[in-house]
């Protein structure tokens, strides 16, 4: 019973730590996917008095992915019924050129301002429309969500790690007498501490697999479908084997570091 309590006291903070890491990873992946989707859909419109040199523009703004000229004809065609042929010809001749620019990545607000200024400085460009208001709202939300998840993970990780260290101290104190007696008969470090390492390795694997299964079945706890449909953010990005393997490595590393650190500290004292 005492042993079970000890294991649970170690497993809970470790599980919480791994859960927060995986949650942050899941949110981050969702946001990255959403950003790349937004970047694909997001367009800057440039109005120019004449044809612009695409290579020259791409040199000024390296983050440009594609520049396409907007076909005016289909818009002018819609006006055919209400305008004379001569007016249509005049309109076709006097209308400026419209270009739609797509970027490689979704920019920050500052970066967007930089791009806008750079484009405006190009001699033939008359107007640059970045749709900043719409863009800003979405982007601010994404940045806030990303920052919140990182702060949450860091905070939870620190608290959990401190709890793990505390539990390690309790474990090493419980094993202290046994380790001391083994030492009196010449047992090397690895033999004295083997049972401690075995326990933490086992618990580390259990915690990682538990988190893995939790995320594998996350759709039962969180309505991922409605998040995807309502917000367009796809959070069902957990890859059981790869992610559980990564979590196991993190879990093992943290557990082994904490037990080694506590043993060394106790040895020195």
């Amino acid at each position, binding site marked *: 019973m005492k042993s079970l309590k000890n294991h649970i006291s170690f497993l809970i903070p470790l599980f919480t730590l791994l859960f927060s890491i995986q949650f942050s990873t899941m949110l981050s992946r969702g946001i990255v996917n959403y950003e790349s989707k937004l970047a694909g859909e997001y367009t800057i419109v440039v109005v120019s008095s004449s044809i612009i040199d695409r290579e020259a523009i791409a040199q000024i703004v390296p983050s440009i992915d594609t520049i396409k000229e907007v076909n005016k004809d289909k818009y002018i065609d819609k006006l055919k019924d209400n305008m004379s042929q001569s007016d249509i010809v005049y309109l076709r001749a006097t209308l400026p050129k419209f270009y739609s620019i797509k970027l490689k990545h979704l920019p920050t607000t500052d970066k967007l301002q930089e791009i806008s200024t750079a484009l405006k400085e190009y001699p033939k460009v008359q107007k640059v429309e970045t749709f900043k208001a719409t863009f800003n709202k979405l982007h601010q939300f994404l940045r806030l969500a990303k920052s919140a998840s990182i702060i949450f993970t860091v905070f939870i990780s620190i608290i959990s790690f401190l709890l793990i260290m505390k539990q390690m101290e309790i474990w090493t104190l419980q094993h202290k007498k046994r380790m001391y*007696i083994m030492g009196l*008969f*010449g*047992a090397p470090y690895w*033999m004295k501490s083997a049972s401690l390492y075995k326990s933490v390795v086992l618990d580390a694997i259990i915690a990682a697999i538990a988190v893995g299964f939790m995320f594998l079945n996350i759709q039962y706890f969180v309505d991922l479908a409605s998040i995807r449909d309502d917000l367009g953010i796809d959070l069902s990005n957990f890859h059981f084997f790869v992610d559980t393997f990564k979590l196991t490595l993190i879990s093992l590393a943290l557990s082994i570091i904490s037990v080694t650190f506590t043993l060394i500290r106790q040895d020195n004292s």
Partner: protein
Amino acid sequence: MSNIIEARNLSLSYDKKELVIKDANFSVKAKDFVFITGKSGSGKSTFIKSLYGELHVHSGSLNVCGFDLRDVNTQKVNLLRKHTGVIFQDYKLINEWNVEKNVMLPLMIAGYSKQVCKIQAHKLLKHVKLSHKAEKFPLELSGGEQQRVAMARALAHNPILIIADEPTGNLDDYSSQVIWNLLKSVRQHIGSTILIATHRIPKTLGMDYKQYFLQDGAIHEVS
């Protein structure tokens, strides 16, 4: 005959300020049966601790089983402890392990297979008349029985030197007599060198022994 223990101008201290043992000269030959006596607080346990590397030499020299203990490291101490068997006043048994596993400890450290460890442990438990308690845990045994388990453990790896620190200090007269008889039988049958720190030598030991007396940090041979 070569010396198993050789101390020259040996000084020992816990805090490097006050010396518990001062400039002591002492030697023990192989197969000797030696008593270190002295009043409580005279430094018997301190001297014993230095023999298995738990206390470092302050000055002078100390050689035990061929190991120079002036400059020790963990590896050297571990190696020395594989050649010695120590019996403590408070038994120092691992309470979470059963009697059999406690006796197996030095053999496990020496790297023997589990099967060999078990056979040897049973042989020794038979010798100390505790075969029937192999599965019991230390706290289920009496003080005398615990000390017999500690003896079996100290003998498990056939050490060339057995060190005992007040082995009967916590025992009644009957249990003490059993322990002395066992130590005698070890000396007679195995031929290990035995060094015992005690404040009281049994009157009916019935064998030759050497006695040293510890007083004011010095070790004197009692003739």
